[in-house]
């Protein structure tokens, strides 16, 4: 299958500010996460790919079209959800999405039908007839997403779709992003500054730092690399510490983290897949502790920077 996006040596400098430097990556179908701290060059990359910005150097193509010649054709085939606010407050989501679908070339009846469908898929129901100025952040994000999907693009750029959302809305949004990539069959490039949340939904993750490519690999690789575990048992600090001390005696390096115990990647004798898990299971059973959480430690962006920083130095 052809890659959805390819870039070669893509560079963008604003005067002395280097927003992107010599970026060479490939993005395939499904959901691809683009991670980096604020100002890492994520939004710049998306704008270049949309043809809204001209790169200082290098090449890129989107859906087989070169960004320099095929800008208009690309914009016909992709959807874009910007990071910032972009909704006029006095228009209803329904009217707005219909209008935006028409701006992508759909006829009036097709635009109406698709807008209604897409708004249902993103989860805006009765409120879609109200002016968007009164929307909560979650509803605004949904409306922004709906306009990006209205014309049935082959690829969507989602810039920080979970920004400002509370945990419930964040989970919903991530699930939606996952569905767009799998059920809807639309390739997704989604940015975030939280690696943890992109791990849950993306097949592939690209990490940018200060405009440089730090890493581009399948999501599973990130998880395997971390290797730490988080364990929580029912009770107070007393129970937490009992568990931690018992695990430490069995050869695991433990430290308390809030109500949980954080366990470092196991030593070689416990490196077999599942060995550490079984050990935790057995210790909990022996001590009669209620095990209420056992999960891999969600890697944070900072961790990746830490690791990569060492290898790059």
């Amino acid at each position: 299958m052809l890659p959805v996006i390819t870039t070669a040596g893509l560079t963008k400098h604003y005067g002395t500010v280097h927003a992107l430097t010599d970026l060479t990556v490939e993005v395939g179908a499904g959901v691809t996460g683009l991670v980096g701290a604020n100002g890492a060059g994520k939004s710049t990359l998306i704008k270049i790919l949309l043809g809204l910005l001209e790169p200082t150097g290098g090449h890129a193509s989107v859906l087989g079209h070169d960004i320099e010649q095929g800008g208009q054709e690309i914009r016909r085939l992709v959807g874009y959800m910007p990071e910032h606010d972009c909704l006029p407050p006095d228009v209803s989501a329904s009217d707005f999405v219909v209008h935006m679908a028409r701006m992508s070339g759909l006829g009036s009846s097709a635009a109406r039908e698709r807008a209604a469908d897409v708004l249902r898929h993103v989860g805006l129901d009765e409120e879609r007839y109200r002016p968007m100025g009164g929307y909560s952040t979650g509803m605004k994000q949904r409306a922004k997403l709906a306009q990006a999907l209205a014309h049935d693009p082959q690829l969507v750029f989602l810039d920080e779709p979970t920004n400002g959302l509370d945990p419930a809305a964040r989970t919903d949004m991530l699930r939606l992003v996952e569905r767009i990539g799998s059920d809807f069959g639309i390739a997704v490039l989604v940015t975030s500054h939280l690696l943890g949340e992109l791990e849950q939904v993306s097949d592939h993750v690209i990490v940018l730092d200060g405009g440089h490519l730090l890493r581009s690999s399948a999501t599973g690789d990130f998880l395997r690399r971390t290797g730490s575990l988080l364990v929580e048992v029912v009770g107070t600090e007393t129970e937490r510490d009992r568990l931690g001390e018992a695990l430490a005696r069995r050869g695991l390096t433990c430290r308390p983290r809030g109500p949980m115990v954080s366990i470092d990647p196991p030593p070689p004798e416990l490196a077999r897949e599942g060995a550490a898990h079984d050990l935790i299971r057995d210790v909990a059973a022996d001590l009669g502790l209620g095990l209420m959480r056992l999960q891999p430690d969600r890697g944070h962006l900072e961790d990746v920077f830490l690791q990569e920083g060492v290898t790059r130095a």
Partner: protein
Amino acid sequence: MSTLVLDSASRWFGNVVAVNDVSLSVGPGVTGLLGPNGAGKTTLMAMMSGFLAPSSGHVTLDGQPVWRNTDVYRRIGLVPERELSFGYLTGRQFVRANADLHRLPDAAAATERVLEVVDMVEPAQRRLDTYSKGMRQRVKIAAALVHDPSVLLLDEPFNGVDPRQRMHLMDLLRRLGDQGRTVLFSSHILEEVERLARHIEVVVSGRHAASGDFGAIRRLMTDRPVQYAVQSSDNRTLATLLMAQESVRAVSLRGEHLDVQVDDLGSFAVSLPGLARQHDLTVFELSPSDESLESVFAYLVAR
């Protein structure tokens, strides 16, 4: 030392009830006001800072009403969520203007002192519109602290601030709380509140859902029907075993996971490790799949 008290305070806008009969009292130390978006946190904050009259009930600071009482601002420092639109001022000019508005005897010294507290001395001669989000937040806090208030109210102070600056702000607020100030901040992110506040007040859909020590509430939160995602070396076998447990209401397979609905977390958690060991199953992952504030607190409200 000051105490902010809400006594059966409600606020409605037409038929929309944003805050519904909330009674609470905020004393010295750091308190987190926690709730999902749209729960009424901003409305509560506006009432506490005197920018909204309660439709019914009372909001008082040390016994004095807050609404239309400009004197309370001698004791309150407010950090609104709104952006600064004074982009044409430098950080120092902005803080100094706040000091002057309080008619501080030595406004210049107070300005420098507070700029140091938020670690903004060096960028203070730059215009506000050149600041990053985190710098603007710190200048806003400096402006709110310049008259050494006993109460500091912050509306969503960490929104849009990147992780490094967030840590910095949290340290600052913790220090202020340790000094015996009443620090109240609102947030919709559980982890933020967890890291900063010992005492929390929770609002859901305009109602006061929970109040008290963070740890205690967290324990209450676990004592409820929960949904778990479990991944093991043999999901089907584990499903059969779990279904036989009285604490489990339902089990279903979803992709590589088992979705388990648990009625009694305590006995489920205790029996699971033994059960798995007995049948030689490796539990790769066990995590509550429904930890969102809304669902957690919806349960507390419904009780």
